[in-house]
């Protein structure tokens, strides 16, 4: 079975549900106080937010939260409670039950690397990058893109499976990006943590 087929099968497997937790996604034009409104709605339902990722993309506030509740959760009730904080049609809100398997283990066990790509802004770059990474079973943990027309810089954090030869990945990726006129680097995250964090280096090497 190919890696792609394995990945498709993995995504289609039924997931056992944790009935007391849910995942909430909110997309809304950015303004002051959005996170307060969402957090208040969850708290009013006796929920406790236990995971959050929030950013603003192109003027849109986007947040994904996980929350735990004392009893069984009805996703539609939670969605309605959050939606009440916004005007009609102002926000896109989605709520789904939390799968037990999610969060138990990362999709890929391996080492964290940082990938940087810079060059002319072409629509095919992100597709080529993500296709390559998915084909190699490399998981994207975080991705940011900065536009400075006509140039673009991608910065991603990825997990490279433990068994994989990083030198081979670096070489293949470099070759691929060179064909698109992009410069690229794949470097272990510790070089960035070492230069930007305060704390003993030995703690990085133990991790």
């Amino acid at each position, binding site marked *: 079975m190919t890696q792609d087929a394995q990945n498709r099968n993995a995504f289609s497997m039924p997931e056992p549900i944790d009935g007391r937790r849910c995942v909430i996604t909110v997309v809304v034009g950015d303004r002051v106080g959005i996170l307060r409104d969402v957090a208040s709605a969850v708290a009013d339902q006796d929920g406790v937010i236990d995971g959050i990722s929030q950013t603003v993309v192109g003027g849109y506030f986007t947040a994904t939260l996980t929350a735990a509740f004392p009893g069984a959760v009805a996703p539609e009730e939670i969605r309605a409670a959050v939606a009440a904080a916004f005007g009609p049609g102002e926000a896109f809100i989605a709520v789904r039950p939390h799968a037990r398997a999610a969060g138990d283990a990362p999709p890929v066990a391996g080492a964290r690397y940082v990938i940087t790509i810079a060059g002319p802004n072409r629509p095919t770059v992100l597709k080529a990058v993500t296709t390559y990474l998915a084909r190699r079973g490399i998981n994207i943990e975080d991705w940011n893109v900065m536009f400075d027309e006509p140039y673009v810089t991608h910065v991603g954090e990825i997990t490279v499976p433990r068994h994989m030869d990083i030198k081979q990945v670096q070489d293949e990726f470099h070759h691929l990006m060179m064909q698109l006129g992009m410069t690229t680097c794949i470097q272990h995250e510790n070089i*960035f943590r070492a230069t930007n964090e305060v704390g003993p*280096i030995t703690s990085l*090497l133990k991790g």
Partner: protein
Amino acid sequence: MLRTSDILSTVRMLQEEHLDVRTVTLGVNVAECARGEMAETCRAVEGKIGARAGNLVRVCDEVAGRYGLPVVNKRLALSAASQLLEGRGARDALLLARAMDASAAAVRVDLIGGFTALVHKGMTPGEQTLINALPVVLGRTERVCASINVADTRSGINADAVRLVAQKILQTAEATADKNGFGAAKLVVFANIPEDNPFMAGAFLGPGAPECVINVGVSGPGVVKRAVERLTKARPDASLDEIAEEIKHTAYRVTRTGELIGREVAARLGVAFGVVDLSLAPTPLIGDSVGEIYQAMGIEELGAPGTTAAVALLNDAVKKGGAFASSSVGGLSGAFIPVTEDHALAEAVAAGTLSIEKLEAMTAVCSIGIDMVLVPGGTPATAVAGIILDEAAIGVMNGKTTGVRLIPVPGKDVGDRVDFGGLFGGGTVARVNCPRGSAAFVNRGGHIPAPLRGLTN
């Protein structure tokens, strides 16, 4: 959680500002290799180096690839070779040096230090053998580097050794006249020699060190220069203390990369990690110059009044940033001023704004000494000895390391141009003032006593 701006600033340091690990140096103690016959000793030395350093280059390359951080040089530093030369003659000294040379080549290392003698209090016969062999050894080997410690703060200055070594520097230059005296570039004369310096030509494994140890030298003058430029561009009226603060923060980041690489290499090789030496070591490349940092601070003509203060500011800020970054900072850790290896310094010497005397003043506040300075081939030995004595005095009296790496260029005179190529660069032969004015003083020989500050017990 890493911030994108932090990631990009690190990438910029690596890709645009020449940040690299300048050297990963494996120290190996070869004292146990002493045998009855020198040929057997040499075989033991080669065997031990092969066993201990066989994977050094491969491991360094792997770790460098993992982090995207170049490790420019991989080198070896042996325990003082003079220990293996007691009771031996000149022929044995050359045999040992050739064994070191061959061992370095076998493990794909470009330089090997440790042809070293510590003679600050006096000389043993083996140490005298080593010093006498310097011209032949440095003339007939490719990779061997030598260092002689002639002074320290607790012992004073061995003026007899200084006089002898000065003669050997001239003879070494003559022995390599076909390479413009390049042999002398592989010989450093020290006061207060550090036991853990990873940089060549002065690296050796000190007597207090473990049997095998990884010491790392990080550099990054380009990173510091760009940091100062960014600050002064954003704030043209930035004060000197603000510049010092900027350098300190930059030094912190640079030092951390060195420790990361060094510890990982040491772990993979199964040896101890020693120190990270944060020394701003230039290369002849534009943008990788220590002199350019002083220019970025506002010293438009290197050697102008204020240059020594700029060196002091830089050296101090580098040490402070490094000390906070790692509890394993050692070696020289400061700013180097190797003239031929730094295009800005070399141009200042050629222009006549930077003299040997000014360089000497700068060495009182930086981390090494008169380094890679070209002087006329006809410079008298007493003048070479006088320069060494002056530098040693600065080191001894200030409780710091100083060194001299002079290259008397055979057949060349003041103003002549010499190019060594590669990382050694090139430059203009500098004037030695009053070259015969101190012969009587130097020829007295003997010992300059230790200063009061050496009596600390």
